[in-house]
């Protein structure tokens, strides 16, 4: 009887969704939430962020790489509240923009196809992305976070979950799906660790999310009820936070709040703000981390030539922000990472086997954390960009003015007394 109870208890503890990650991690991070947004380059979001490897001061992107004329080029410009139409970000465009590492074909790539190409040089700054910049101020910004593949949403998302390229090496999905290629979620499941894939406005019967949710192209994740039940609508995120059922690893993708041009970037910020604020207000703050990144550069300018690690990547840099009680405050992390670094972090943190050569060799994001210090208290950030409050020299002016006044008054009061005494 006792043995039966023990077995039953162990079975209950081993159920996915039960927060038992406790002592199973190598760091204090027991819950890792990773959100993948869409289509922006690092320079288009943080190119003017102080301290980051941003847009070079003198850059002017030529109309043609054959004619590097100074008067026929496009300088980076602030997009402000504009949301440009979706820029072309197909492989040919990427190759032309990359231009064998010269990184000077961003405008030409469009002009060759009869398009204007000016918007590729558009960027946002702190006034347009106040919440993201506030995160960067208070937590950690990566400025060497590369997309894993040169191009392709499906391919990049696949790297994100499996650490390897798709079976076709491109955007096509084989007729039978992705087969039995292991994903990070298989690794987690093998260890009995809970995970979830949150999808904004998720429709289990729809096929629209298959690009962003690579799991939907695996037969087992569609047909196995237990696995399928792990792919859920994003509304469950709040419920999991309040119910205490946040899984160890959670992936998040958006639809209505996507920042993919021409969608409004404010919608994405608002969603991230809600999610991170709820995390900060929850019981999970002190043992969780929230990573935001992007599935590709979206055709926007980025000045850093991506390192070539294999035939598929890296692609251009993308924005990435880390928010955690253990984040380094206001830190710009220059470690070279990509989506497989997310896998590497999960693998190292939960002691899981690597999925492929890419994630095995990848950096694991630990450089962005400070695990030697106690967890930082939770913090809710403003949706507006508050100017840094500085008393400047006001305090000095006040001290000098009032000290003068006191001195003058003391002189007026003391002198009569001194004179009087002397006269006596």
């Amino acid at each position: 009887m006792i043995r039966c109870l023990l077995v039953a208890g162990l079975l209950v503890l081993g159920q996915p969704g039960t927060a038992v990650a406790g002592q199973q991690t190598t760091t204090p991070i027991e819950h890792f939430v990773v959100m993948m947004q869409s289509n922006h380059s690092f320079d288009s979001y943080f190119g003017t962020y102080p301290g980051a490897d941003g847009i070079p001061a003198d850059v002017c992107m030529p109309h043609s790489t054959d004619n590097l004329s100074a008067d026929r080029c496009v300088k980076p410009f602030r997009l402000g509240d504009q949301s440009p139409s979706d820029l072309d970000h197909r492989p040919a465009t990427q190759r032309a923009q990359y231009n064998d590492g010269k990184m000077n074909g961003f405008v030409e790539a469009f002009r060759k196809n009869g398009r204007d190409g000016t918007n590729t040089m558009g960027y946002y700054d702190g006034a347009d992305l106040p919440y993201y910049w506030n995160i960067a101020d208070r937590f950690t910004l990566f400025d060497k976070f590369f997309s894993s593949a040169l191009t392709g949403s499906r391919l990049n998302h696949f790297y994100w979950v499996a650490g390897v390229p798709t079976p076709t090496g491109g955007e096509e999905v084989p007729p039978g799906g992705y087969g039995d290629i292991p994903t990070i979620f298989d690794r987690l499941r093998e260890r009995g660790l809970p995970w979830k894939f949150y999808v904004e406005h998720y429709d289990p019967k729809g096929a629209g999310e298959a690009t962003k949710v690579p799991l939907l192209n695996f037969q087992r994740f569609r047909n196995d009820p237990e696995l399928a039940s792990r792919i859920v609508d994003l509304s469950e995120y709040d419920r999991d936070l309040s119910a205490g059922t946040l899984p160890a690893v959670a992936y998040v993708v958006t639809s209505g709040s996507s920042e993919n041009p021409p969608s409004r970037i404010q919608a994405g910020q608002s969603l991230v703000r809600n999610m991170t604020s709820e995390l900060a207000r929850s019981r999970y703050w002190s043992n969780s981390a929230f990573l935001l990144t992007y599935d590709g550069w979206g055709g926007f300018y980025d000045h850093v030539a991506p390192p070539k690690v294999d035939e598929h990547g890296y692609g251009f840099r993308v924005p990435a922000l880390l928010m955690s009680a253990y984040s380094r405050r206001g830190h710009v992390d220059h470690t070279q990472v990509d989506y497989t670094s997310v896998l590497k972090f999960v693998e190292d943190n939960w002691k899981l086997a690597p999925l492929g050569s890419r994630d095995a060799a990848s950096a694991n994001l630990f450089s962005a954390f400070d695990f030697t210090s106690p967890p930082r208290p939770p913090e809710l950030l403003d949706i507006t960009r508050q100017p840094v409050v500085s008393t400047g020299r006001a305090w000095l002016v006040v001290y000098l003015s009032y000290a003068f006044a006191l001195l003058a008054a003391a002189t007026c009061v003391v002198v009569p007394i001194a004179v009087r005494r002397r006269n006596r």
Partner: protein
Amino acid sequence: MTRFGSRSPVAVEEDSTATVAVPRKQFRPGPILVMIVILAVATGLRVWALGAIGLNSDEAVYAGQAASLAGDDTLSSLFPIFRAHPLLFQTVLSVGFLGGVSDVGARLLSVGFGLGTIIVVYLLGFRLYGRKAGLVAASILAVMPYHVIVTRQVLLDGPLTFFAVLTFYCVARFCLERSARWLYSAAAVLGLAVLTKEIAVILLLAVVAFFLLRHDVRVSARQILVGAGITLVIAAAYPVSLLFSGRIGTGQNYLLWQLFRRPNHSLAFYGVEMPAAVGPAVLVLAVGGLWFLRRQHSWRETLLLCWVLLPLGFFEVWPVKGYQYLLPAAPALVLLAARAITRTSFSWRHLRTALIAVVLLSLAVPSWLAVNPAPSATYLAGSGGVPAGREAGRWIKDNLPLGGNVMTLGPTMANLVRFYGNRKAYALSVSTNPLRRNPSYEPIDNPDRQLREGGFSYVVWDAYSASRTPFFSEQLMGYVEKYHGIALHTETLNISGVSTPVIIVYEVRP
């Protein structure tokens, strides 16, 4: 009459135009011992349970300004240095804050000014009416509820009263000795009074009125010009600091608003509040003494009457009435009462002593009750801290995420949340109409939208503000219901045996 003060200046200055022969000083331990007892009692009343209740709204603002001046990283983002008044008191306080911000420490500075005021009142009473009058005046002020209550708080009125008494002390010395140096000293101290609270210019009017009314106290045009120049130069520290900090509009906006705002109390406010605060016996003695001793009327009484009546008249006309605003005039009443007691002839030799005892007792008892208040959810503004405001603020500091914006009912709670909770707080009741709000306060443009968009994550209801603004209390609770408010923390007080919630912190989410 002169037997108590035979060696006081009164005896040598019957003719106001005569040059005063200053008495030689001899050590007399009696008055010193009496003063020590007076100061000990005064200190006891002012420090007893000093930290029992946290700061009130105005105290939080002044302490916050001092903390900003002292370079406190957190509070400097919540309390701008320049707000409504000059900064002499806050500057002095900031020096003490260099070692760390403390609410009780801030109040101790006020207590220090209060004790200093008692000493100067003794000196002034001694100069005007003799040593005994000085001691009686000092003892009355030491236990007067009005002075006790205000000088236990981090308010500008306690220090202002100190400088006011010092100013009139210098004026009295000028009248007694006819030495222009004392007039210039008075001008200098008046400058400091203005730097403490700009409303001290009323005292300048009182002094001018005195000189205009008393032709027997002659002041030359040159002396007036030099004195005015000294006051101006010293008081210039306020506009100069604003100018060089690029905040010259701050003081102007506040003055304009104060001039044209709606009255915050009825004309009867001081008539209702002051007698109990000053002490009915003191008022009766002061007025009765003026009548019964009218034949002895001299420049001294004119000076004291100008000191009382100008501020009283001004604040009756001024739309803004504050409990503590008339404190600078209280010492003059005290001196008039002391004059009545010490200068009236009594047939029974112990009657004077008995009268003094009764007066002091009539003041000390309410003072003692005031420093040991029964729990209440609705204190009069300016007369004490907000019940449980400090405790709620500290709970917020310890338990709410950094950066969590808080919506409060009124600006009082907003200031406490900022000071003790170190969170940005905005009051629902602050008008969006710039003509209707204190320029120091930031309104919430669209509270519903800001709650919906997550601009506010927490809402604080408090009984003190709710009793003053029931309309906004209802609106606030409507938002709490609409945005799924969950009560995270409740501060309760045991009022008449019933545990009563006085502050509730809600978490809200769209």
